[in-house]
């Protein structure tokens, strides 16, 4: 059996080496690929946040204010990813002339008629209203964890002295 396998392997190697054709290994993709990857990354990020949230609910690591903040932070990050996904999708579907205005940034505006896409785009663009609170709650959670850990260490050293 081993000898047969060896003969077949040698035969296949010879066939591939001796009969070269056009190489299909490398392919160049078009412009939408970057957007797709970015969108998929947002989806993964959202799934990761919701997965962690579920995991912490099933197997809680601890209780208290810190974990509460942390869960809120995860929810905000999840919502931000959903919002970002929607914003990117809508933005890609809006034509360039949907935004008017002189070259100056602050003079730009969305002209009427205000379609659902335009309104959705406008609201979704305020994504920092989701990601900044997410980060704030993350900071609060970490700060609380730090205080608890410091208190625990102080108690331990006090017990050791006692």
């Amino acid at each position, binding site marked *: 059996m081993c000898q047969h396998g060896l003969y077949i392997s040698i035969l296949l190697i010879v066939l591939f080496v001796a009969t070269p054709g056009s190489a299909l290994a490398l392919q160049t993709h078009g412009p939408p690929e*970057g957007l797709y*990857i*970015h969108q998929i*990354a*947002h989806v*993964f*990020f959202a*799934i*990761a*946040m919701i*997965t*962690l949230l579920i*995991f912490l609910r099933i*197997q809680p*690591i601890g209780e208290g204010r810190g974990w509460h903040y942390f869960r809120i932070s995860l929810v905000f990050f999840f919502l931000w990813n959903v919002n970002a996904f929607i914003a990117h999708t809508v933005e890609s579907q809006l034509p360039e002339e949907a*935004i*008017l*205005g002189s*070259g100056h*940034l*602050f*003079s*730009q*505006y*969305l*002209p*009427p008629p*205000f379609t659902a896409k*335009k309104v959705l785009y*406008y609201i979704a*663009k*305020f*994504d*920092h*209203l989701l*990601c*900044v609170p997410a*980060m*704030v709650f*993350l*900071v609060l959670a*970490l*700060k609380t*964890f*730090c205080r608890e*850990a*410091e208190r625990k*260490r102080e108690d331990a050293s006090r017990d050791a002295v006692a």
Partner: protein
Amino acid sequence: MNGLPLAPIYIVDFFGSGSMIVLSFIALYYSFRLTQLESKSVIWTYLFWLCLGMVAFALSRGIGHILRFVLILAGHGEIWKTLAPISGSLNTMTFVSITTLTFYYPNIRLVMDRVREDARRLASAHASLKELNQTLERRVEERTQALRLSEEKFRHLFENSKDVIFFCDADRQIRDINESGVDLLGYTKKEDLIGRPLSELFAEEINYQQFQQRLCSQGHVKDFEADFRRLDGSTLTFIISADTIRDEKGKTVGWEGIAKDITRFKQVMTQLMQSEKMASVGQLAAGVAHEINTPLGIILGYTQLLQEEIEGNEEVRETLMIIEKQTKVCKRIVADLLKFSRESVKNVISEIDVNQCLEEVLSVTEHSLNMDRIYVHRSFAESLPKIMGDAGKLQQVFLNLVTNAHQAMEKDGIIGIWTRPFPDGKGVEVIVGDSGPGIPPEIRRKIFDPFFTTKGVGKGTGLGLSVTFGIVRDHGGTIEVESPPSSQEFVSAGMETVFIVRLPVRGLEGG
């Protein structure tokens, strides 16, 4: 307003990006601080890496967005168009990193939980093992202590037992023996016995053969009686219990045994049996003598009466004289029997000087002894305590012994007489010996029996030593015979047989 202005969006975007950068660094600081406080925590490690990802995300996104405003406002919008894909790609990478990290965390946590559980079990097992080890050490210590105590106990028993305890190897050679064994067998140190064959201790080869045969066939021997030979050649009687020692395969690797010296016990038992026998015989003799004595007196009386009445008939007169003579012999025998059984005349108790008593006896007998060229060796102690007893009866005792010695030698010999006080001064020991042929062992035990004699018919009644035994016993003393003597003093004096009479000072008085 003709449309919805985008300025609010840009303002929120600008300040939001800056806030994100600041907040991500604050979050990174706290997460780092947490890893410092609890370095072994998986969740803090995860959060630290998450925050690091957030910093990267905030920087790439925030700087990108701020730069966008700066470039566009500065009129370099084209540059932003070049940089925008780079910023977006970096954002994408940070998302993926954070996502990957977040997906891995539960797995890492599971692994860590398992590791912790294993560590806990390991710690538990370690604690159990430690406890077991400590318990084991304690147990070993306890067992060692118990073993040491047991060893000490048995060593003490071995060394201090008054019986002989011995061990032999498979070649039947003595490997160990206790101090009592060494002393009893007459040796001075254990090493003189170790290595000797056990058979050498047995006085009789046949006894050793029987002992060995029983031990080999049954595996043990119980209450085996045998004589052991001492270093000086004398013997002691032992009762032996022994077992074979076997290894784990059942092969005999030696013997172990305990031998109890019963020599003294046997002597006492023999004396007791003799005493019992004498008592029985004495009782019988007393009854018979008492019944015969009266008819004999009548026969003797009538015989003498007839002798006086019959005058001239010499034939009848001679017959009557024979009857009278034989009747007197019978009367003497009966009198001896009564003396033996203490049924004769009452004792006349007085204070007796044993040396003087012996001299009186010798004064009577020495002439006839000299006739037969028998020399009397005297060795009388000077400060001999006087004893309470019947002088006449004691003279009869010594007379019997001297006569016995004379008869044993017939002619040419030595009679040795020794007197000495008891070591405690509460009695007198009189030894009467002769250089005759000695007494064979088979008859030595019978010589005190009434009517036992080695003389021919008509030459002795066999009551002499019985009467002697009875009188000595009556005086609370003992009489023993040794042939040959055990004491070198008597042997060197040429004695073959000695009678040892021990009389207490207050023997007869005491009852």
